[in-house]
């Protein structure tokens, strides 16, 4: 069964450093998403991406964040200058259509020290 994959599974970085979280969505999916879950809190929407552009973003997704689909398979989330409060589990998801089910990857645990 096809699945969403994410790398790395765990990333430790120092405050102020740039990080790139990588995702490979399911191959025939057209809609891509990033969510995050701060420890002990609810899963929060960050951004959705379709047709090579951001379709919607949350208040959390400020200028520090960017997304990119650099090739036909990868979908990345970049945080330019990490802050302590960026520590969270980041989930990538993809769906086949607007009304399609979201399939989530296993997540990348980002720890900012």
């Amino acid at each position, binding site marked *: 069964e096809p699945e969403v994959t994410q790398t790395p599974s765990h990333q430790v970085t120092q405050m102020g450093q740039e990080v790139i979280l990588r995702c490979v969505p399911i191959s025939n999916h057209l*809609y891509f*998403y990033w*969510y995050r879950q701060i420890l002990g*809190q*609810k*899963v*929060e*929407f960050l951004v*959705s991406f*379709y047709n090579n552009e951001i*379709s*919607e973003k949350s208040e959390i997704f400020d200028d520090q964040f960017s997304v990119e689909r650099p090739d036909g398979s990868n979908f990345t989330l970049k945080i330019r200058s990490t802050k302590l409060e960026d520590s969270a589990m980041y*989930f990538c998801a993809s*769906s086949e259509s*607007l*009304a*399609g*089910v*979201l*399939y*989530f*990857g*296993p*997540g990348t645990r980002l720890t900012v020290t």
Partner: protein
Amino acid sequence: AQSVTQLDSQVPVFEEAPVELRCNYSSSVSVYLFWYVQYPNQGLQLLLKYLSGSTLVESINGFEAEFNKSQTSFHLRKPSVHISDTAEYFCAVSGFGGYNKLIFGAGTRLAVHP
């Protein structure tokens, strides 16, 4: 805008007992409804979904949920739980016509005891 309320943050239950995890939502538009499960140290897995049709939906591992439009609820039930059902359960909603943005509830931790 949509929102999701999961009324119970934790539900302890003994093995083979029935369980109900409650979920209420609010939305000004028609919605799709989902339950996702997160096992310890793992990602989110789709448990079941309501998109249209029958208001009672079932998962392959014995869970079921019923969409109740008048009560704006989508409670999750299982008649007999197993130790392996111990996990965090998230109710989520997305609205028609949007880019499939899921709004999650805060989650309910189901702890099944022997």
